[in-house]
């Protein structure tokens, strides 16, 4: 049997998920110029939200998604008002360490509340699959891909056509000029931080029926998101989509074709980060940045 169609389908489905995972970070980084190290923990919280919704209330993750997304937005808004807003003009080091500390705190609150044990949200469709020709398609991954596509398209539409979306893009491009045009920069900041957290929570809900859920799941996903955002370029959603596809395809190809590939695939994100930062720090489609 030829492996290639299977590899392509796996990579494609993964790329959709990666796009959703990284697009939140990309929005936050593009607008606020801060890498939010707590973004991975938002994914983790989303996954736990979906898990508890299913276990305690019997609500399918797909049904609880809208509620959790709204909650994620609110949480992001609060984190911005309570912490991040205070370091917007501080040196980079304060911004990095603050969000790093937040991530550490959130992760360990989760450990205290829900223990470090691995859990999984087993929905009816989590384990089902079907052959399309020679290609095995796992339903849960297909559903995840569909949700991711819908959310990313919705985000792009919002940024492109809504008044607030246009204002957000203006702030991302030039904060001072946007303020002079009468845009409430502070509100846009809080808004985009909230939206970026909401997107990460959505990612968590989606992966809840694909991966095992632990309090530690956020950090590796954060690193991958950073790799994707840097690869695609600062402030470019299209770049993020390309970055997600590059990472997903290279990971999938390595895990299929390299001996011990599944282990090495975990290292590709780091290789990409170092490689792109050395060769082209602005990424594939990014604006020129102060490196």
């Amino acid at each position, binding site marked *: 049997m030829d492996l290639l169609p299977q590899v392509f389908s796996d990579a494609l489905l993964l790329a959709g998920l990666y796009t959703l995972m990284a697009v939140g970070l990309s929005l936050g980084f593009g607008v606020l110029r801060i890498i939010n190290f707590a973004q991975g923990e938002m994914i983790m919280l989303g996954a736990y939200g979906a898990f508890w919704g299913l276990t305690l209330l019997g609500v399918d993750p797909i049904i609880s998604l809208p509620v959790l997304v709204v909650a994620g937005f609110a949480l992001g808004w609060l984190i911005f008002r309570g912490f991040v807003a205070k370091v917007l003009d501080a040196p980079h080091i304060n911004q990095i360490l603050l969000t790093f500390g937040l991530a550490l705190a959130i992760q360990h609150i989760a450990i205290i509340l829900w223990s470090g044990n691995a859990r999984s949200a087993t929905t009816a469709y989590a384990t089902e699959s079907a052959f399309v020709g020679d290609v095995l398609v796992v339903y849960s991954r297909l559903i995840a891909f569909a949700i991711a596509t819908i959310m990313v398209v919705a985000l792009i539409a919002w940024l492109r056509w809504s008044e607030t979306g246009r204002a957000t893009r203006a702030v991302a491009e030039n904060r001072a000029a946007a303020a002079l045009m009468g845009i409430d920069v502070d509100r846009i900041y809080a808004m985009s931080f909230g939206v970026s957290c909401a997107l990460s929570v959505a990612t968590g809900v989606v992966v809840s029926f694909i991966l095992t859920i632990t309090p530690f799941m956020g950090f590796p996903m954060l690193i991958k998101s950073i790799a994707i955002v840097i690869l695609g370029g600062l402030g470019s959603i299209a770049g993020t989509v390309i970055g997600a596809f590059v990472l997903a395809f290279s990971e999938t190809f390595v895990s299929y074709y390299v001996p011990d590939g599944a282990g090495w695939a975990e290292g590709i994100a780091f290789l990409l*980060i170092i490689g792109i930062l050395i060769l082209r720090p602005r990424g594939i489609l990014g604006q020129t940045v102060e490196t």
Partner: protein
Amino acid sequence: MNTRTFGLLLGAVVLIVILSIPVFGSPSAVDITFRTCSLIALAVSWNLMASAGLISLGHSAFFGLGGYVVILSANLLGMPFWISLIASLAAGALFGSGLALITGRLRGIYFAITTLAASEGLRVIAVMLPALTGGAKGAFLDAKYYPGTFTVNMGMSLAAAVTCLIAWRMSQSRIHYAFRAMRANEGAAQMLGIYPLKFRCAIMAVSGAVASLVGGIEAFHGGYLDPAIAFDLHITITSQIAPILGGIYTLSGPIIGAVATVFIGDATRLSLGHIEGVSLLVFGLILVFSILYLPQGIRGGLSDLWRRRSATAEPTKMAKP
């Protein structure tokens, strides 16, 4: 008493204490001193890089590298304690300056992410090369190379002492003005005739060597290493919390912070240790609140108090920022 004599006196006291405890102290005092000295050396090393404007999120890379160099050079080549440590020192310096060369023009957040990626990348390599590192199962140090408790503890105390002396020497020389200029604005520093790459290589070689040496001594101390221990994010976190808590960009800050961090860690473990994860939660909260409310750390807070009290006596004396 002015700040300078106070600092010198404090330094001398710290030196005497950490060098005499391995000789005279009780086992628990020796253990606490070992851990404190380990953190002092890591914190000073992190602070050296930070004071040149280089934020390291990958100090565990150096730490783990040093550990593996020690295990390999002892187990495979049969090197004695001191020579293994020199090897880990050299490896850390090489890796640090190499990282400085390849990250040549990266600043701020981009530099920080590269160090994080380097550390996580090394972890993946350590997992994937079981022939060399024992893979995820880990590797034991051959017991016949263990040099005895006293040597290991004394080694760590010496490492901390020498690290502090190096940092003190640097703070006395004109080099530290170059670092301060680079931290404020690397472009402007370059205009003034400071060649950033040279200074970056130097500071990262020193910082990397120290952190790697600590990793090496810790490997002798523990006798076992696996990728999760060696490249634990925890190392990076504590080595940045200590300077932040004590007072970043200062000489005494990381030392004060390391003592405070070990104390807080032990206190939470003793009082709330039955709750899993609580000590790192406390560290996370410390990080957040010291950034927001105590940006100059304990040292800055103390010298503020000091200045307010002696404001009438010496109105022009200002603590260094």
